[in-house]
Structure formats: structure tokens, C-alpha cells
């Protein structure tokens, strides 16, 4: 049986990612010692956590539910193990199949032989060990997939030739859903060259005290008023071109259409033509919309929101997208009015493309604002959005 009780004895919590080097195989640097002290300090400040083994890759059935991603592969790592006899090996070959890009694999949490581990409502931290077989430092990324396309993603630079523990503290506001379907581990490759990593001992650390849940009371016909801070949290922002530098910032603002509560302010950095050439446009995606009882609304009812675009530094053009069951069902370019609060509205019928209201409308789970090229590299572009709501109309 796996000797992972060693790591269980470590009561680790952290407010960010930390790498814990080595198993004493090497002398720690001052920087590493400082990190350990920081972890110890945090550990002492927070109550005990209960470890739950997610996967130690010791048995064939530990590998049954793993899934390949992109053009990657995972193997049984018999050459190295952090504990026990083996680990998961990520091997990017150089011969016959010169590798390009990174390698990744998916670890579903719901279907493994250890049972359903997808309830992460009590999980405070995730820990795993990585051995980077290369001499140089490489980046390892962990992405926790949440419902409705949301995710938590963190990366860590891992030194070569040493087992490294990566610990990540899951901030509750990052996990609006108590469920995590999959964890995706991704490893940096070196195009044209072989790369090897080993992954071992994936452990959840659960809080014994539970996590305080926040409650948001929605008003009649409210979709998102942004008056509660939680409503501004479950929002994903991506830069389209893959560069984190181009990702828009989303924040709560006291500048509102009604003079009360809060609005959402989107601030996007100016970009270059790089943006327009990307496959996916930059966007802000709103996920806290699946609570709305969409099926109560009829074809003539309207989805509305108020927006304000500053005279200077305001967006010039935006696209408004609606997704049902994860599939885009409506896409509308918005001609923006500047300098005053303006209401944008679209009927249910228009969203449904003139057809009968289908299940996908009843299952709306995402709204999104997208934009294309912002060709002023040194400028930022803003828009305030407020009071996303349904307006009930009588029949025609």
C-alpha cells in the first residue's frame, strides 16, 4: 500500500501556490526555506485539514478513467515514484513523432474506482507531486474544470531533477459550484525534443469546518444586477489570443444606471492586430445566469440590460452572445451609444431565431460580451453593464 501518509501528516494550506521541494534529497535554498516557513505559518493559523487521496497511480484501475487530451499521452511511470512503486508518466517522444506543444491529460473525479470525488465544496487545497526529468525549469499547469465552462487554473515553474510538491489553495470565490468534474494536468514541452515528467500523489485537503456559502437573493425578473459581490465573481475573461496581457479586467462599480447598488465594469486593454487574428475573440463570459427561471418567459418577453460607454476610452463595438446548454444560440453586434446610460433589449423570439422556444433557451447558462480588434495598443476600453433582466410583455 502506498506510503502517502507522509504527506497526509503535512497540514498544508496556502493562500497561493507553493512548491515544496524535495523529500530532503537536496539542501533547500534560502528561498525554499522561506516558502516552507510561510506554509508553516499559514498552517498554524488555520484549523486542521483532512486529506483525501485522489490518485496515487499505484494500481491499474487508478488509470482506467484517465483521458488523453490534445495529442498527448499518459503512461505508467515505473521508473520513478514519489511514494509507492509507480507514478503517472507524461512522455513526449522525440523519435518517430517529434513533439510540439505541451502535453496534457484529464483526470475525471466522478467516475474513478475511489468513488465520486467531484464534490469539492469542502476542499481547501489540492496538492500533487511532480518530477521534472529535464535539467531546466519547466511549467506545470493544473486546471480544475467546473460546470458551465468555468474553471480554476494555476501554473507552477518546477525545477529539474527533483520531486516537487505543488500546493494550491482554492479560494471559495473561484469555485461558485461545489462540483469539479475534471482536473487537467498540463506539462510544458520542448518542440522537437523528448520531455518526461512524473506525477504522483494527488491529494485534496478538506476543511473540517466546511465553507461558508454566500446567499444571493434575486429580485423579480433579475438575471444579474451586480449588486452583490458574488455576482461579479463567476465571470470568466479571456484574451482570445491566448495572452494573459490582453485579458479584460472585471470589477464591481458604484456607477450605476439607477443610482443604487452596483454595476459591472469591463476594462479591456488595447491590443494589436494579434487580437483580430486569433481564433477566439476576447470576451467576458457571465456564468451566474443559470439560476434564472428562463422557461417562465414567453416569446414576446425581452432580455434587457443597461450599459454606459464613456465618451473617451469607451468600447466602439461589442457583440452580445447567449448560450443555452453550452451552445451559442444568439449572436448580435451592438451599436453602442456613448456618454449616457442606454438600454439594450432583445426578445425571446429573436434569441430563438424566430422558431418556437426550444430547450436551449430554457437552459441558458452563459451570457457573453465579445469584441474584436482594439488597435490602440496604449489605450484601454471600458463599458459599464447593469441590471440584466427579463422584461415581461403581453402578447402581440
Amino acid at each position, binding site marked *: 500500500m502506498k506510503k502517502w501518509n507522509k504527506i497526509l501528516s503535512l497540514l498544508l494550506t496556502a493562500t497561493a501556490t507553493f512548491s515544496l521541494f524535495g523529500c530532503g534529497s537536496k539542501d533547500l535554498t534560502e528561498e525554499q526555506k522561506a516558502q516552507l516557513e510561510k506554509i508553516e505559518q499559514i498552517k498554524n493559523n488555520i484549523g486542521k485539514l483532512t486529506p483525501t487521496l485522489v490518485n496515487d497511480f499505484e*494500481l*491499474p*484501475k*487508478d*488509470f*482506467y*478513467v*484517465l*483521458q*488523453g*487530451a*490534445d*495529442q*498527448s*499521452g*499518459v*503512461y*505508467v511511470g*515505473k521508473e520513478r515514484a514519489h511514494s509507492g512503486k*509507480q507514478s503517472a508518466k507524461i512522455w513526449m*517522444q522525440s523519435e*518517430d*513523432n517529434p513533439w510540439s506543444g505541451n502535453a496534457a*491529460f*484529464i483526470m*475525471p473525479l466522478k*467516475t*474513478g*474506482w475511489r468513488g465520486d470525488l467531484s464534490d469539492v465544496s469542502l476542499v481547501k487545497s489540492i496538492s500533487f507531486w511532480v518530477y521534472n526529468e529535464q535539467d531546466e525549469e519547466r511549467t506545470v499547469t493544473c486546471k480544475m474544470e467546473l460546470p458551465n465552462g468555468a474553471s480554476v487554473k494555476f501554473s507552477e515553474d518546477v525545477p529539474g531533477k527533483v520531486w516537487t510538491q505543488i500546493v494550491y489553495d482554492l479560494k471559495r470565490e473561484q469555485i461558485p459550484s461545489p462540483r469539479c468534474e475534471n482536473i487537467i494536468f498540463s506539462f510544458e514541452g520542448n518542440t522537437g525534443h523528448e520531455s518526461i515528467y512524473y506525477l504522483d500523489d494527488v491529494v485534496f485537503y478538506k476543511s473540517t469546518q466546511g465553507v461558508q456559502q454566500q446567499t444571493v437573493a434575486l429580485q423579480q425578473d433579475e438575471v444579474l444586477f451586480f449588486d452583490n459581490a458574488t455576482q461579479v465573481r463567476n465571470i470568466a475573461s479571456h484574451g482570445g489570443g491566448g495572452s494573459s496581457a490582453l485579458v479584460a479586467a472585471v470589477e464591481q462599480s458604484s456607477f450605476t444606471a439607477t443610482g443604487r447598488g452596483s454595476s459591472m465594469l469591463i476594462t479591456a486593454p488595447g491590443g494589436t492586430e494579434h487580437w483580430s487574428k486569433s481564433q477566439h475573440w476576447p470576451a467576458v463570459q457571465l456564468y451566474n445566469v443559470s439560476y434564472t427561471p428562463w422557461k417562465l418567459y414567453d416569446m414576446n418577453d425581452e432580455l434587457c440590460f443597461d450599459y454606459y460607454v464613456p465618451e473617451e476610452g469607451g468600447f466602439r463595438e461589442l457583440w452580445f452572445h447567449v448560450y443555452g446548454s453550452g451552445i451559442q444560440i444568439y449572436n448580435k453586434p451592438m451599436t453602442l451609444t456613448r456618454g449616457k446610460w442606454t438600454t439594450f433589449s432583445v426578445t425571446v423570439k429573436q434569441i430563438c431565431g424566430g422558431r418556437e422556444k426550444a430547450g436551449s433557451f430554457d437552459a441558458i447558462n452563459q451570457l457573453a460580451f465579445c469584441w474584436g480588434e482594439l488597435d490602440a495598443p496604449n489605450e484601454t476600453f471600458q463599458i459599464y453593464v447593469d441590471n440584466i433582466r427579463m422584461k415581461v410583455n403581453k402578447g402581440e
Partner: protein
Amino acid sequence: MKKILTTALAFTFLLSAAACKNPTEDSSAVVEDGNVKICTTNSLEKVLQQETYDSGALQLEIKAFQNEHEAAQIIMTPDYNVRSYMLTLSDLTSGNHTLGKENFDLYHEKYIELERDVEGGEKHFYNGLSPYKDGDMSPDALLPMNAAIEYGENVIAKGNNQGIYVSVKIPKGQPAGVYTGNFTLDVDGKKTTIPVEVTVWGYEISDETHSRSTWAVMFDNNKYGEANLTKFMEKAYVDNLLNFRLNPQNVPVLLGDATNFKESKIEEWLDSVVQYAQDPRCSYINIPTNAQKNVTVDGRVYSRLTNMDLYAKTLTAVAKRSLKEGINLFEKMDMWLNFLDESEQNGDVDNLEMSTYLMKKQQADFATEWKAAVDDNAWFADEGYSYDKDFAYEVIESMRTLKQFVSDASDGVTRDGQRFEAGSADLDVGKPHEDRDAYFNHPVSYMTRAQEFDYSYSRQFFDDYEAWYNEYYQTDDAEQWLYTGCYPHYPYVNVLLDCDLMMQRATGWMMQQYDISGMQMWYSNMYQDMTGYNTGMKPISDPYANASRFPETNGDGFTTYPGMPYGIIGPINTMRIHSLRDSMEDYEVLYLLEQEYKKVITDAGLEYSRNDFEKMVEYINESFFEHGRIKAYEDMNETFLSAREALVVLLDMVTKTGTVITDYEKLAEKAVLTLLSTKNADVTLNSNALSMQQEEGYQVGKAEFSVTELKTSKLQVKTDSATVNVDVSFGYYNENVGVETVKKLLSASVNDSGAAVVDGVYRYTLAVAETEAEKRYVDLDLSVYKINHLYGELWLTMYNYGTEDVKFNLYASHSDNTKFKEFTSRYGIHGDKITSITLKPGKNLVKIPTFILLWNMQKQRVHGRYDTLMALRFETTSCAEAALGFGQITIER
């Protein structure tokens, strides 16, 4: 699985039959924890984990040709929980010769639970035919013993059977002989000696695979189970298939479905093609093609046609690379148009016809253009290509004759406007169909479902169709392929789990008998669940535990398991695919026999006829196989192994005495073999000289054998240098009722309608007439029908041209030991049930409500006819008779 059914052998060669040895005292090894019953058996026996089993033998016996794999099994049954076991190998010897232990591979048999009632629906149509039932734990995956030991799986629960699969590959050049020695089985420290006897036959099979195939191994399906989407893993799967004498659907270039092919992939694909074109294991290379939607040709819109621009560019690229490499890369190439899969069912007939028309036309146009360019020394000359002209012509001819294979699920009804209706004496192969224009009257290369070879009219149609193909395209390489999948099931050849391993093992023999050059399998690494059918693939949590991954099947879609969880790169193979490889190796033995057969015929100054050779194959096959059906006798595995030994005798007869069988007739009273000899052989039958007619360069004679009693006849062929003895026994094959008798019975009762046709012993076709002016009834009286076979089911196909309900009385009498138990009528591929009644002795009213067909079978209705498959289930304890009769068949308005 040991059958409980009993029957007489149709016939068999009785050549040094491998008699089971009595268990020795060692066979029940006593260990400190308890006892372990140990026995041995052949590679074809599927011993369930929890059945009572004892072969009575304790000696591994294997007989194999040089360069061939064969296997045997050890079955252990402990009365306590075994903590570990292992088998230690030793070298075997025969005189001064050694068969090294390194030639053996050991596998721990893993068991998987069979699921019969998937999706909460009806049981299979074939339920009751297969000896397996819901919940049976069937051996399938063969885990290398080292991996079993490493992961602690070499344990046995109390009362369970546990098989060890012992496989050997006889090295090339290994001297013929009987090699003996001992292996040592260690169960929790208690050692048992297992005697081993390997007979090496002195004929060597080829490294080159001559059978063709296309097995879909999808790299993207390795996302599950293997958790691997790399070309590295795809190549491991492809190479594994080739090691089993099967070809992949595509060479490994991360295509997945062939329709993902695109121009930017051509050169990468060709890099791989060059490698596999030179690999003797590879006999088929697929040209990937994809489809374009809504293409207009001559003012008519086709919903999908082959992407002709891509096809033309691909052909050109292959030609250039052939010249560059000096290898005719077209030689092994053809293509499976899988985007037009089962076109009859999917409404793609016109798309298929137009696609194949355009592709053949492109090939013909290129051939004309390229030959002219070669004549003028201008073929790709401006691009710097140089070549030998003869080689260039060879490349071009191979390109011109490329074949487009398509699967044909039309169930013996129609084929691209050609009819081969049941019983039609006037097959209209090659005749233009009046409703079709010029684009739709050309032959296509078909993959046909295995059960279609059950009918003589189908086989005749296939032969005529091939002749038409060769004439039409001015070639001689027409090919007929077969395919299986979820269908057919027992007792036809297939790769399903709830069937005996003979269903796989007979495949190569069937291919040789009917000149079937290839086989197709739609999926071989489906590590997902597709039982939702229309809801797509779903991941499975345990790829070693889900037997049913496609509706109402066990084992369909996967013939391997993922090796990754056990640290193995590439798949873990199954007993099924091992059996299939054995079958493909049998194909190679028969290929060798055919080459020797040709030499004899050529030496005689005669023209070789494939049909004559097929008679010889039929003669060998008939003990275990008929038309694609496996004869499910209790001792069918032993019968089959005897037939393999007969093959050695026939090889001896052909190669050493220059004597072949050129005809084989089955008559009501006797069987007749026609022998042709080129070496003035003395031929005797039961010590009496056989009259041989002398011809210039050879002699011929006929040997007659009784078929009314179980009797072994001694046929001896003797020349100056060799004597070959052949023991022949046809058993009492026709003692009760044969085909001819049943035909007479039927024709007597349906003469007036002229619409009922019989083929084979137990499958009948009824046609209900279409109009008022025609006869509306068929009286079918089988009152003296006798059961002398063991399939437990009598099949009838009713072809109803109308849309009204059909009603008739079914009379059944139950004798003491035979009962007709149940009548069901079903439709469609999966045999969905329409009607089911339990038969009482006497009159039973049966009504087949056609509205169900109308509701469900819009796509199934072909040429205005609804096909209803009817089944009469019976049980029998011995060869006995029962009465069965149909009353007047009427149509209810």
C-alpha cells in the same frame, strides 16, 4: 464452453485424433490450503469462470505449422482462495532438436461479465442459440503473465476457474517432429508437472499476409482507456493488428475517421504508406477519402459525394512518390468508402453510385493521360522524375484498377439496381435497370455481411457480380469481402463475446472456400459506451468490465483492451483476436495448399480453376462449417482440430503424390470425391484399387463414400516415393433429412404459388403475393420435418409486398423428446420483436401486424417489400422428429 448438445459428426478425418488423457494422480494437487483441480484443453475452449469444467486431460497438446502461432490452456479450479500461481517453462525436445522455451508466451485469462438484456429491452433474437447467458463470466482479455504477477492478479477465488493461455510461435525452419517436455505449475508453492507435447508439421507458412482486411483502429478512441492521443500509440495499435495478420483502416497518421483526410495530410500519409507498403504483414493500405456535401452533377444535387479534387491530388501524389521510391505504392491500395457505409439502409445508394462512378472515371482518365505521357517520356518529366517505363505502366495499371469498397447491408435483397432475389433462377447481374440512368449501372466492390454467404443464390450472385466487374473494368482482380459487427451472431462467423471462439476461427476457412479476399471491422478499440446508439459515445469507468458497448451486443467494437493501466505500451489482446489470427494463419496454410494445387494442375497440362480448389476446401471444411455457419456440435473444437490435421494429410497428398481433389459431390446416398493425380499414383479405397482413367499427363478417378452410416473409409495414394493414407468418414450426414428431402417437401406444398424457396436445411423463404390477381396464400406443410441439427431455432423469412397484416395457423406436435416451444417474428438488423407466442401442441393462430413494420421500417423497406424474420424455437434431447405445419397464410385487410 462445453456444450450440452449432442449430435453426430457430419464427417471427419480420423487422423491421430488427440485423445484426452486420463487425469493422473497429480491432476489434483494438494496444497496446504486446499486442493486445486487442474486440467488442460485446446485454445478454442471458452471455459467460463464459474462453470463446472473438467476436460479430463493433463497434457498441453499443440500442433502447428512452422512460423505459426498456436495455443492451449491450463484450467485451474481451487477449493480455497489461491494467493498466487505461476507457470515455469522449459525447453522441449524431439530427438536432437530443441524447441526453446523462449518461443512460448503465457497469459493470465481475465474474465468479463456478459450482458444480454442491455438497455432494458428485449433479449437478442439469437437468444437461445448462443450457449451463453446473462451474467456469465467469459474469458477474453489475455494479460501477459508478468503483468498479472506484477499487479497481483495471479490469484484465484475459491471455486472459480482460472485459465492460463499458453501460446507458442513455431520458429521458421524448426524441424518437424513431436517435441515433449514438462512445464511446472506453482500454486501457492505447490508444484505440479504439466506434460507438454508440441507437434511441428513440416510446412512453413508465409511471413507475408495474403488475406486482406481493414479494421478500424481509431487513434482518437485511445483518448479513453489508453489516455493517449499520440501517433506513437496509434502506431502501437496498428503494428499490433499487423502482428495478428489484420490491417488497420488507415496507416498511422492521426486521421481517426478517414473522412478527416485533407490535402495538407497527403505527404505525411505517404511517408507512412512507404513504410507499410514494404511490410510483408501489410496486405491492404486504405486511401483515405472525404466527402463534399450537396454537390451538383448534371443538374442533380447529391447530398454527399467523394471529394474528387482531393482524390485526384491524392492519386497524383501517390504516383509521384511511387516513382521517387521505386515502389508501386498503389499495389496494396484500395479504399473503404466508410462515409457511405451501409448505403441501402442509410439512403445513400445514389451517392454511392455517383461517387464510385466519378472515382472510376478519374482513374480511367488518369490512366489514359499518364500512359500517353509515359509513351512520350513526359510523365512528370518537367518535375525531374525518371523511371523505367515498364514500372511506370505497372504503377498506372494499379492505379486504374483501384477498388472502392462499400459495406452492403441490403440483406440479400438488392444491390445497386441489380436484383438477386431469393430463388430467382434468372439473376440479372449486369443488366441495366430500367429505372436507372447511365451513372447507375456499373459494378461496385462490396463488403457483404457474413450470413449472406449462407444462401446459394447469394453466392451465385456474388460470383456473377465479380465476373461482371472484371468484364466491365477489363481487369481480373474483382474482390468480394465480408464484414461483421453487431450482426451476424451465432452461429455465423463474427467477433462477438457471447459466441464460441470457433466463430472467429472459421473465418479464414470460409474466406478460402468462397474466395473472399478480405474482411472489414467497423471498430476494434472502442473503449467507450455506445449503447445509447444515437446519443453518442460515453466514457466507461472500467474498460475491463463493460462487455456491451453497442446495443444488444457483447464484444462488438472492441477486440483489444487498453494496455496502459498495466504499464504496457499498446493493446492487450483477447482470446477472440488470437483465435482470429489463428484463422488467418489457417488461411495461409490453405494459401500454401492452393499454390501446391496449382502446380499439380499445371503439371497435368490443365488450366487452373479456383472453383475446383474451392471444392477441395469445402471437403475439408464441411466437418465444422457450412456456408458461414459453424456446426455447433458438442465436440466441434476437436472436430475442427481434426480438420486441421486433415489439412496436413492433404498437403502431403498434393506435394508428395501429385494428387488433388477436383470435385466433391454430396448426394442423398453417397459422397463422391474426384481425384486427379499426375504421378501415376496407385489409389486404393479400403484396399480395393480405385479405377483411374488415364489421360495425357494425368489420371482421374472417383471415390465413393457412404453417408448413411458412421463408417471410416481408408483412402490410400501411393507413388514410388511416398504413401499417403487418408481416413474419411462422412458419418450419417443424410440419414434423416437432408436439403433435397426438405426441398421436395416444400416444393410439393408450394408448387402453386411458385414463390417459396428453400435453401439450406433450415432456412425458408415465404413470399406473400402482392396483388389480388395473384395467389394470396402459401400453404406450407412441414408435417414430416425432422430435426437432426442442433441450432435450436428454425428460421423463416417472410417477404410481404403488401402493407396488411399477415395471419396463419401454425400446427405443432410435440414428440417425447422434441418440442417446438416458441414462435417469434422480428424485423430489422437487431431483430426487434413483433410477435411472440408459446406454441401449444396443435393449432396456434399467428398474426404479424404489419403496421409495426410500417411504423419502424421506413428505411428498411427495400423495393416495396417488408422482410419479417420468423423464428421457431425448439428444444431437443436427441436427433428426433417433430411435426410442424403452416396453415393457410392470409392477408387481413
